[in-house]
């Protein structure tokens, strides 16, 4: 048995094709399985890619910025703001720093307190927005200097906001990838079962072929090519249906948040087209494994 020889499953060998009876429930099962699994895999892929984009967006929007919050008695707050700004201008790694205007603070609080919030009348902290340069700054050193220069100043480098969001997005992506792996395994298992059923149903054919001098590779090729092409064609249909389903999802909308961004963007639409290739490879490997195992038990 030359199991090491790697037969091209798509190599046209009409004679080898003809020796296996053309129809049967295993054919329909293989096509349906690969169609359904690829359809699901398209959504898992969309989830994974959307989670990746989300993680990047959150990371980009929060990375490189920080906020200093200054809470102090009313008569000291301007002094402390000025001291902090002065400190920041000489702190390495800080590209720019500016105190938020009253209107900007009012806009930040508007979603909770409405547009008519009397900022002047409330003891609100003052906020200073920091943008760091590419080298970055020493957060711990800055905190210590702030404590000395402006006791009411607290540095918030957004880590505590960014980290859980990034972790959540990363886990969503992992969930998507895991789903694709599980779907692939399930498809492989189902195609193996279908191939085993086809081989069992065609034992007489296999015996006749062995009797007249067929090598195992010849018999395996006949089954492998058929199952690979069936899985590939079913997967193409599943991928196209899945892509159609994703295309019908609502477009990206800020109000909708993550759910409305659950699609492909740009070249990302090409990735689902790789799934039929994956399905073909899985079918090829599963059928080849099943066929050689069956033949091994025959004289």
């Amino acid at each position, binding site marked *: 048995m030359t199991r090491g020889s790697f037969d091209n499953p798509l190599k046209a060998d009409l004679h080898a094709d*003809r020796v296996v009876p053309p129809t049967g429930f295993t054919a329909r099962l293989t096509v349906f399985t690969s169609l359904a699994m690829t359809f699901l895999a398209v959504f898992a892929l969309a989830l994974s890619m959307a989670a990746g984009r989300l993680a990047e967006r959150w990371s980009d929007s929060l990375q490189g910025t920080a906020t200093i919050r200054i809470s102090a008695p009313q008569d000291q707050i301007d002094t402390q703001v000025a001291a902090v700004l002065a400190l920041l201008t000489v702190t390495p790694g800080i590209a720019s720093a500016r105190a938020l205007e009253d209107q900007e603070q009012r806009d930040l609080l508007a979603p909770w307190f409405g547009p008519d919030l009397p900022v002047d009348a409330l003891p609100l902290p003052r906020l200073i927005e920091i943008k760091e340069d590419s080298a970055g700054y020493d957060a711990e050193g800055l905190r210590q200097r702030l404590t000395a220069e402006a006791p009411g100043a607290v540095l918030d480098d957004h880590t505590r906001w960014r980290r859980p969001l990034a972790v959540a997005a990363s886990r969503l992506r992992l969930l998507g990838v895991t789903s694709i792996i599980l779907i692939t395994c399930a498809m492989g298992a189902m195609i193996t079962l279908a191939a085993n059923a086809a081989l069992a149903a065609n034992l*007489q054919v296999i015996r006749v072929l062995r*009797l007249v*001098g*067929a*090598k195992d590779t010849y018999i395996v090729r006949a089954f492998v090519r058929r199952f690979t092409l069936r899985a590939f064609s079913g997967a193409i249909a599943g991928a196209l249906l899945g892509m159609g389903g994703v295309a019908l999802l609502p477009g990206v909308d800020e109000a909708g948040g993550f759910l409305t961004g659950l699609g492909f963007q740009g070249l990302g639409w090409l990735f689902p087209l790789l799934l039929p290739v994956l399905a073909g490879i899985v079918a090829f490997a599963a059928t080849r494994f099943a066929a050689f195992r069956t033949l091994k038990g025959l004289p």
Partner: protein
Amino acid sequence: MIALENAAYNYGGGELLSDISLRLAPGSFHFLTGPSGAGKTTFLKLCYADLQPTSGRVTIFDRDVRTLTRDDVALTRRRIGVVHQDCQFLDHLPLAANVMLPLTVAGKMGDAQDVSDLLGWVGLSQLADARPPSLSGGERQRAALARAIITGPDVILADEPTGNLDWEMSLRLLTLLVELNRMGKTILIATHDLNLIRQAKAQVAARVLRIRNRRIQLAGADL
């Protein structure tokens, strides 16, 4: 061609064949006879590497069957034509494609005229496009013989080839086998049809072997 040296075969419930020694010389004609269940089919299976002896040695074309890989077995079977009593075909293919099957699996393109001639030789020209399930027992036996010889094998093994045939058809098949032997082919026929053996001995120098008590004996004139 094929040699057995002290070969035995055990199915698990005791030995069916014991201490078998025999050499099938090129161009020889042998009959193998014995009662049902004596081990004739098992003997033939040893001769085309469908079974391996549980002890002793079987060599086919000078190679010990135990040393043959699965590919070697396939290649060996291309040099041995086998006709079974219950001839099996690929029912979804027409008869001509079934007869060409040994060429097909060997990656050779069969000549349609050769196939047509061969079908004519076994009297099945009109059935080239028929499906095997529609053939009678005799037609299946002759089709199996055509399939067995299409590659020009060195040896032809036939297991009860006339088991489903009437006498006239049996003689016809025997004539085909005798003709093949005259072309130099080595023939071994397992049969319990003593009349067929007597008829053959009138046409060809055939040795008759008998399986008795798990062993092979050369039969005498007491057929």
